[in-house]
């Protein structure tokens, strides 16, 4: 055992890793509750499949591309198959935890980021196309981008861009890619034809709660140590989420006269997105401002989006792209070495130049994510086929893509489960004679 390894730091990072893993499950519930019942499983599977696929990709080559000691643009292939990724610390990332702890912690980020995109393309994308997209996006967009910002020698890191836990890498990249994907895929068949409303708001609240819970690992874990910085990030994370929830509720109240549950869930998530890049660099009062402003930006964007023909179904661009960009820029405003001596100073601390650096990081992320997604989707479209046909969409992707239902007997049956009419006829059980059925020729 290496003497430099800290038991406390390692324990916290491994715990945080598990917390971030739960976020992807939370995201599945969050998105799953927002779609219609006939697409609930398909939507949830888009998150769940990432847990499997990206974990495999990460061990085989993902971690190497993202965090290997390569060039400023990518990490290289030296760590293929986790060769050289051992239990000793790598001082380039964290001097007191095993490199494998860092690798697993970062894996959870790599899983949830592409899963975030799925909210923009629900209820209409072929599942096989999504899986191919997921793998290509993680490999050619997420991994290099993570290297730019966090990898040893990454060019945005050298530039001094402040991104504590992934405002650019995770949220702007996912949000922008979601916008491109929604546009290239086209709208759902029912979009603007019939009312499409969340089928299970309690699931949405469950998912939002799990996201908030897991985000403590996401942000406070990004300190990569059990120290004051982790506590600062923890405090800012909770404060911004709470402020965004309150802000969203007030905006709801002013606009419609009622505070909504979907609004509260959305608001808190947007606050968490906004604070992500800033969590370890700003003071608690500043996190109030970040939460409020992120909510304001996102709320406005959602109202505008709803008037357009763009079917970003679950508003991934508004919630992650724009709130992430707002968070990245506000980090440039509020960052101060008073909060984190190892961090940087922003505009209010007299360093206006930081705003320029933040802008470069945002624009570089937007460019890579937008172009990369467009290229990948063009390829997927030409090879595997991308959109479920009208009949499949009307039937629901749970049945057409997965051959199962979230609520058995609901689809196509005259009544729900628990009634005689809702029960299906067993068609393929072993050696069954149809009981009481009239003889037919």
């Amino acid at each position: 055992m290496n003497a430099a390894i800290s038991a406390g730091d390692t324990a916290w990072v491994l715990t945080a890793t598990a917390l971030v893993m739960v976020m992807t499950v939370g995201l599945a519930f969050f998105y799953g509750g927002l779609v219609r019942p006939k697409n609930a499983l398909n939507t949830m599977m888009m998150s769940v499949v990432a847990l499997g696929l990206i974990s495999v990709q990460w061990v085989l080559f993902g971690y190497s591309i993202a965090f290997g000691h390569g060039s400023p643009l990518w990490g290289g292939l030296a760590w293929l198959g986790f060769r050289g990724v051992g239990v000793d610390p790598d001082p380039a990332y964290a001097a007191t935890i095993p490199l494998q702890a860092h690798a697993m912690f970062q894996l959870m980020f790599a899983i949830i980021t592409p899963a975030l995109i799925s909210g923009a393309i629900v209820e209409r994308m072929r599942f096989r196309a999504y899986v191919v997209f997921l793998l290509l996006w993680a490999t050619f967009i997420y991994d290099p981008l993570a290297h730019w910002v966090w990898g040893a020698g990454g060019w945005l890191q050298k530039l001094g861009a402040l991104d504590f836990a992934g405002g650019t890498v995770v949220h702007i990249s996912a949000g922008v890619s979601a916008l491109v994907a929604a546009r290239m895929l086209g709208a759902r068949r029912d979009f603007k034809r019939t009312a499409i409303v969340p089928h299970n708001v309690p699931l949405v609240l469950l998912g939002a709660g799990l996201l908030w819970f897991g985000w403590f690992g996401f942000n406070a874990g990004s300190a990569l140590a059990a120290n004051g910085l982790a506590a600062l990030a923890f405090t800012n994370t909770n404060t911004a989420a709470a402020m965004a929830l309150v802000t969203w509720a007030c905006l709801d109240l002013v606009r419609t006269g009622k505070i909504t549950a979907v609004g509260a869930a959305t608001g808190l998530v947007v606050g968490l997105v906004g604070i992500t890049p800033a969590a370890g660099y700003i003071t608690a009062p500043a996190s109030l401002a970040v939460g409020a402003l992120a909510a304001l930006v996102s709320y406005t964007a959602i109202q505008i989006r709803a008037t357009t023909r763009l079917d970003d179904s679950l508003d991934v661009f508004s919630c992650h792209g724009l709130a992430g960009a707002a968070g990245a820029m506000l980090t440039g405003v509020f960052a101060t070495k008073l909060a984190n001596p190892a961090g940087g100073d922003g505009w209010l601390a007299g360093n206006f130049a930081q705003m320029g650096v933040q802008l470069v990081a945002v624009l570089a992320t937007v460019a890579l994510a937008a172009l990369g997604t467009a290229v990948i989707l063009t390829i997927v479209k030409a090879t595997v086929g991308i959109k479920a046909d009208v009949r499949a969409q009307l039937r629901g992707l749970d049945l057409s893509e997965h051959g199962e239902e979230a609520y058995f007997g609901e689809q196509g049956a005259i009544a729900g489960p628990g009634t005689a009419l809702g029960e299906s006829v067993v068609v393929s059980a072993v050696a069954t004679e149809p009981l009481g059925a009239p003889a037919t020729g």
Partner: protein
Amino acid sequence: MKLITTIVRPDRLAEVKAALFRAGVTGITLTRVSGHGGEQEIVEQYRGTTVVMEFHEKVKIEMACSEPFVQPCIDAILSSARTGEVGDGKIFVQPIERVIRIRTGEVDNAALTAVNADAVQREALKHVQHAGAGAGAGEEES
């Protein structure tokens, strides 16, 4: 013989059922229905989506009654389902040509007389007196 079909508010169902049982009408069929009448539409907001619910949830109750029970049945529904607001529902009365009880083959009025009519009424009254407008005896399953 008349077929009485009534559409009422779901939240008045317990009272309507109790009143019908008190009036001696025990053979009823319930259906959950959606309908559009004069009621104001419910507006729901989900993020940027505004949904106007044009159809309201209602309960449809169908009963076949022999002539002496028709007016008491109507009175029972009127007294129990009315709130005075728009959306209380309707009662439709139609003639019935024939009624046949499947178990015995009895027809018409004989088929309409509940086997345990007296017992059910006594039980219903007892429950209503105990629990106010609570659920009566012989909970109906749809």
